[in-house]
């Protein structure tokens, strides 16, 4: 059996394999995996990784597919100290190339994850039979060692690698389960992408709790999702606010038929309109409706539960546990009084220690360990926190963070555009929360229409980064130093 004292998540899973070996841990399609089978396969995957020559401290690129092989490899890497760099296989080629050039993975794993210059292995080629080999023991691993590097959208366009330790991911799972109340009796449907902190966190929360996780492709086919809820007896799931808009739009109130079986719904990654929170409360009167505030760097820093906090639904909540501290600091890092806006800063067991590249750490923390979220807000006298704005200029498209400068860089490669700026605007369809709007300055007398510009962007940007609204303008407002004044465009 695996021995991984550095990883509390794995220790919890090992305990479940011993205490409840026949309990189903994972369901994918028609295949069920018990906790004892799960740990055996993780061990076989660890032997397999070692057979490829991987050692503690090496990095692997792991495509976040909703497949059992992903789960085995992910935890196998943790068990032997190999660092996971979890990526979305469908990411633009230049993003994957950039990530590989930063972390230098020894191997990439996926269904179709090939990065030039790096060895790649397809999930379908992985043989997890242990090959008659013993797991080689590595003894010098610590909870503070890096377990995962998650790449997030940087404000300047280049993704930033967030280094999360074994202690960080265990802390986040324990804080989250403590607040939501996920327990061994639960069956959760996971339709969120595993390439994001939210979805990957749900995987760890469920397996840490000894519950059952049903892997579901995504929310696109609601009929299939509802069928899974029914046949598997699902008691909880996670969603972003854009998914709730989607569920409402396509299925009306059909989902309320599951109100009696759903014990919890976790919501996060973007703001949710108060009327949606109220509708959820009406449809799910006894379900814990838990909304987190957090970032990849500080996963699930705060929580609010709609029924408990019915009178303060505009709040982002309170620290997730007694091991999390939140404060509001001014530009110099000095605490401000309750009610006064400043930057929301977080420290605690789940907060990353650093970014992968030293230059990304400049200005990331106040006073050593207070992570600066880039969000503006205040703490009220009731101890709850409220968001009032965002310092970082990212656009939150249905939970996907988009850098306006990445869109601008793509636009400026088109010869018809002399200058441009992108800002966040409310989604006119009322689904995604925010979408990008592009302001363009022509480079000549005539210019193509927006449809043509949009078509030319499709090979440069992923679909969610392509502006939804467009406007020609004579000039882009800039500061004396040349920085775009986005607020002037928004007003």
């Amino acid at each position, binding site marked *: 059996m695996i021995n991984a004292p550095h990883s509390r998540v794995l220790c919890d899973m090992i305990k479940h394999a011993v205490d409840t070996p026949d309990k189903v841990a994972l369901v994918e399609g028609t295949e069920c995996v018990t906790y004892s089978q799960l740990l055996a396969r993780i061990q076989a995957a660890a032997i397999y990784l070692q057979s490829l020559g991987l050692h503690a401290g090496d990095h692997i690129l792991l495509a976040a597919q909703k497949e059992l092989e992903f789960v085995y490899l992910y935890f196998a890497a943790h068990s032997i100290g190999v660092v996971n760099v979890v990526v979305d296989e469908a990411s633009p080629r230049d993003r994957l190339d950039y990530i590989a050039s930063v972390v230098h993975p020894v191997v990439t794993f996926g269904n179709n994850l090939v990065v030039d210059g790096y060895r790649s292995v397809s999930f379908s080629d992985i043989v997890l039979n242990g090959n008659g080999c013993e797991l080689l023991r590595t003894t010098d691993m610590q909870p503070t060692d890096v377990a995962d590097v998650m790449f997030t959208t940087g404000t300047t366009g280049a993704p930033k690698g967030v280094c999360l330790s074994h202690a960080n991911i265990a802390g986040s799972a324990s804080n989250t389960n403590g607040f939501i109340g996920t327990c061994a009796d639960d069956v959760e449907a996971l339709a969120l992408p595993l390439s994001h902190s939210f979805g990957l966190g749900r995987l760890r929360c469920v397996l840490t709790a000894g519950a059952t996780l049903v892997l579901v492709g995504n929310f696109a086919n*609601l*009929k299939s999702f509802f069928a899974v809820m029914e046949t598997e007896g699902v008691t909880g799931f996670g969603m972003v606010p*854009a998914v709730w808009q989607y569920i409402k739009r396509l299925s009306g109130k059909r989902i309320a038929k599951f109100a009696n079986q759903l014990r919890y719904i976790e919501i996060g990654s973007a703001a949710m309109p108060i009327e949606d929170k109220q509708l959820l409360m009406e449809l799910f009167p006894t379900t814990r409706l838990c909304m987190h505030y957090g970032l990849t760097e500080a996963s699930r820093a705060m929580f609010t539960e709609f029924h408990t906090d019915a009178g303060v639904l505009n709040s982002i909540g309170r620290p997730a546990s007694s091991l999390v501290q939140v404060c509001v600091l001014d530009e110099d890092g000095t605490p401000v009084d309750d009610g006064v806006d400043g930057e929301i800063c977080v420290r605690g067991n789940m907060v990353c220690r650093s970014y992968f590249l030293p230059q990304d750490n400049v200005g990331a923390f106040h006073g050593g360990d207070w992570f600066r979220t880039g969000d503006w807000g205040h703490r009220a006298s009731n101890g709850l926190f409220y968001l009032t704005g965002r310092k970082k200029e990212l656009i939150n498209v249905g939970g996907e963070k988009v850098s306006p400068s990445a869109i601008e860089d793509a636009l400026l490669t088109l010869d018809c555009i002399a200058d441009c700026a992108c800002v966040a605007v409310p989604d006119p369809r009322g689904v995604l929360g925010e979408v990008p709007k592009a302001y363009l300055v022509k480079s000549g007398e005539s210019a193509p229409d927006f449809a043509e510009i949009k078509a030319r962007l499709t090979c440069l940007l992923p679909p969610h980064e392509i502006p939804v609204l467009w406007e020609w303008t004579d000039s882009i407002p800039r500061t004396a130093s040349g920085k775009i004044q986005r607020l002037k465009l928004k007003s």
Partner: protein
Amino acid sequence: MESRVKAIIARVLNVDPAQITDELSSGDIPEWDSVGNLAIISTIEQELDLEFPLEDLFDLTSVRSLVDEVNKLTND
């Protein structure tokens, strides 16, 4: 009408039209996610000047069901 609906789906999802078979359903390919599904619905409504009844949207999960629904609405 069938070819028009299929062409819209392929264009909205930015995939090879050969992929748009009758059996293809939402969620089957990464491009046909929830956002892609909404884009398909709104683009068909806009370009074919029709409106899917709310009570039918839940069942429009495959290329075939979308084609059949459009045929039904345009023949009514």
